[in-house]
């Protein structure tokens, strides 16, 4: 199973876990399995059309998927998938 690194802003869905073991052979399938395990998380990653939101970056190992095949980018058992949202800092 691939490892997904979950950012702080999504950990309320993963019971505080920073990592999840997820099944799937593409990024899309990974997100679907993540949603099965942790309901609600997909709405934070994807828009209503199911597209990954533009301010959320997904990396398979160290490559951003926009530079690969987007949500169809293949993911293998040993891959690490990082979800990296934009963060701004302190202001209310």
């Amino acid at each position: 199973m691939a490892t997904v690194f979950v950012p702080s802003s999504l950990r309320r869905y993963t019971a505080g876990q920073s990592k999840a073991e997820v099944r799937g052979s593409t990024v899309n399938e990974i997100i679907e399995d993540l949603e099965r395990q942790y309901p609600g998380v997909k709405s934070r990653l994807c828009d209503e059309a199911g597209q990954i939101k533009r301010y959320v970056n997904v990396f398979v190992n160290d490559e951003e998927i926009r530079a690969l095949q987007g949500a169809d980018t293949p993911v293998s058992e040993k891959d690490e998938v990082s979800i990296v949202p934009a963060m701004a800092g302190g202001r209310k």
Partner: protein
Amino acid sequence: MELRIENLVPRRDTPIALYCAGGVRSVLGARSLSEMGYTNVASVAGGFGGWKNAGYSFVVPRIMTDDQRHRYSRHTIIPEVGERGQLKLLDARVLLIGAGGLGSPAAMYLAAAGVGTLGIVDFDVVDVSNLQRQILHHLDDVGRPKVESAAETIAALNTDVKVVPHTTLLRSDNALDIIKEYDVVINGSDNFPTRYLVNDACALLGKPLVDGSIFRFEGQLTVFDPARGGPCYRCLYPDPPPPGEVPSCAEGGVLGVLPGIIGSLQASEAIKLILDVGESLAGRLLLFDALDGRFRQVKVQKDPACPVCGEDPTVTELIDYEQFCGIPHSDNGVTVEPLPALVVT
């Protein structure tokens, strides 16, 4: 001179200009060189005194004082720094966007390192809730402008450092004028409109931007330097999140020591850029998770379609960044607070 010239200048027809203080020794030196077979030797008549009196320009070489040699001895002993590198630091001008969580450790370490000019942009006053992480400020500073408190802390650490206060909000109508005076910019801003503003201004001016951001236990760090071929903030995050979609530290909190780690790394990147040593984080995003105790690294690709640094840029001047980030303006120009984040726990 006669003993070393053959190693330095093996070819006898190389043009050589000699000068001394008054123009006498250099004439004698020129005669010696001619006798050694150098055919194209000139002596500056009147020496440096004559040059200076004629009103020609000259540069006085910088040297360190004895106090500075002592203070920076742990730097100058490193071959990659040396006295030459330390003088570069003393001559360098770094702008800090924000004197908060990230700006505090960055400013402290840059000041300690002897970066000669530190500009600080901040409009806020110190609140007691800042003291959990913003180490530039102390209990006595609560209620004071952060820029003032920062200048005082830095002055107490190193009098070689000149602090240039910019007690203002960074806006589209002042950002270029402020940023153009500096060599490197460190971004410790606390909101998306300012992040896009600083990115665009730095890209337009060709200034390297050391970007850091933090939330809860996580930090991100990279260098945006499109002038030297790297990506910019918009290559990484083309669109800002809608207001309220991403929680802020005020809403979600931040581990107090986390900005200490990321801000210190920002100072380290800035020093590398000034010294022109090592490999900058341009094109790489460093991710730190304090809970995991792990650093990870991903690639940041330059986007050929980037509106700021791409092949056919459409943003060629600064825009309205509040509007770009979807933040409504009220009639009197005061920003309306965005809706609260949905993920506050």
